[in-house]
């Protein structure tokens, strides 16, 4: 871990700010991590470069600017392990490919177990991970203390009985990820249209042929939604009802401290997750505010609860000053898994429902969504993730591994 003086100087140019053309082969709604990664892989893997990424605010200013940057792939079910570990493998090569250092740091994640049942569930998940080729270990409390000496394992209301440990997991600097992707997309000819809100669609019968925006229509051969918490506001305009509920999700950061926290720690039971950013802030998060909301603002009791948990787990945090808290708007599905696939409307595709865990999947989501848009068919990795699973009942229930936040 570095308390970091090594952040490279920003390159001279990142991306243009062009006026939109009248038509594009592909319009992507949302210039967050997933929208950027989708544009990137459309260009890289499918040779499609006539792309506009249309963004209501500024590039990577939504959840991409607000997440806690945790990357891991230790999910329980086969479909999830495949999707998230594919993403993790892409993370491992992405910075070289983008020629842009974004401080991907594989410092490992501990998922703590505090009850006998959690021990059984966590060990089951670690075994399932191993069967799926995802690295996972089970650590005893003594072994946990070696990995993370500042963690209080015994002198607390819910003692730490063990933890799963994924060494390949870690964090990355989210803004730099976005800028690296955007710069590369720009080089390949992708247009980023910022401060332009998509408000609906231009349709011809059951075909989507463009998007409506707050300053004029833009024609599109295909449209991909990567709009996170605001997805249903768009699909509602087509009468397309998706099983999504938008919630505030809060996170927070302390003042900058010396390096004290060597890894990522998550606890479902006492409900908090923490890491220390490269620059030195302790970064904390927990669950969504339970009510629906688009205000990008949550309630203080949610912060109070997770800080109480954090201070009990990490007594050294007690003297740290909280500097900032904030919230994003996340779209949560009933099974805590995303929806990625075609829609009943021809040429309209959705990538949504990532809930509280979308950042970790950024390159993987982009890869499979680009494939879905380019070919009109899901990639094998996102085939189980279509919206039809809410009719067939073939849910991908990841409430356990989606962990703290849902």
């Amino acid at each position, binding site marked *: 871990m570095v308390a970091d003086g090594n952040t490279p100087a920003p390159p001279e140019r990142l991306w243009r700010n062009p006026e939109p053309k009248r038509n594009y082969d592909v319009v992507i709604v949302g210039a967050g991590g997933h929208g950027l990664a989708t544009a990137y892989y459309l260009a890289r893997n499918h040779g499609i470069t006539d792309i506009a990424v249309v963004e209501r605010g500024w590039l990577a200013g939504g959840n991409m600017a607000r997440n806690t940057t945790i990357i891991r792939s230790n999910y329980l079910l086969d479909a999830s392990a495949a999707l998230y570990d594919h993403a993790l493998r892409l993370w491992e090569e992405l910075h070289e490919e983008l020629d842009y250092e974004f401080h991907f740091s594989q410092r490992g994640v501990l998922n703590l177990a505090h009850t006998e049942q959690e021990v059984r569930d966590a060990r089951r998940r670690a075994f399932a991970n191993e069967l799926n080729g995802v690295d996972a270990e089970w650590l005893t409390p003594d072994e946990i203390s070696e990995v993370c000496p500042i963690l209080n394992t015994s002198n607390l209301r819910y003692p730490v009985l063990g933890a799963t440990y994924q060494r390949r997991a870690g964090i990355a600097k989210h803004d730099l990820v976005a800028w690296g992707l955007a710069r590369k997309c720009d080089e390949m000819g992708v247009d980023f249209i910022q401060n332009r809100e998509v408000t609906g669609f231009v349709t011809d019968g059951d075909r989507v042929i463009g998007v409506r925006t707050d300053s004029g229509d833009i024609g599109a051969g295909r449209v991909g939604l990567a709009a996170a918490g*605001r997805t249903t506001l768009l699909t509602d305009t087509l009468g397309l009802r998706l099983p*999504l509920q*938008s919630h505030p999700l809060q996170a927070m950061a302390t003042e900058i401290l010396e390096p004290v926290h060597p890894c990522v720690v998550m606890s479902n039971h006492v409900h908090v997750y923490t890491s220390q950013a490269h620059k030195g802030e302790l970064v904390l998060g927990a669950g969504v505010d339970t009510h*629906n*909301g*688009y205000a990008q603002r949550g*309630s*203080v009791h949610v912060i109070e609860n997770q800080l109480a948990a954090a201070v009990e787990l990490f007594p050294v945090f007690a003297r740290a000053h909280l500097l900032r808290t904030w919230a994003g708007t996340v779209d949560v599905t009933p099974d805590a898994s995303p929806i990625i696939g075609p829609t009943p409307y021809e040429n309209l595709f959705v990538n949504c429902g990532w809930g509280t865990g979308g950042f970790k999947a950024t390159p993987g989501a982009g890869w499979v969504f680009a494939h879905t848009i380019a070919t009109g068919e899901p990639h094998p990795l996102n085939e189980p993730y279509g919206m039809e699973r*809410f009719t067939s009942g073939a849910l991908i229930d990841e409430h356990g591994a989606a962990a703290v936040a849902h």
Partner: protein
Amino acid sequence: MLLVRCPWCGDRDEAEFRYGGQADVDYPADPHQLDDATWGEYLFVRANPAGSFDERWVHTAGCRRWFSVVRDTATNEMRPDIPRRRESR
């Protein structure tokens, strides 16, 4: 922190309540007559507007009664009106 108006106890902190989601989601009159898509929609799909939303709360740390309010999900403004019951979902 939201200030939630319980119809029986008055204005209380949000922490005293649990959230119940969209109001007026009725159990289908004859579920066996529904096709899979309609049943799936009943189970999984709820309205998700940015704006006025009829929703349920329960005063768990107070009178323990359920009630409905209208809240603007974009501004969090809560109105104590009783939501107008919609004809159909």
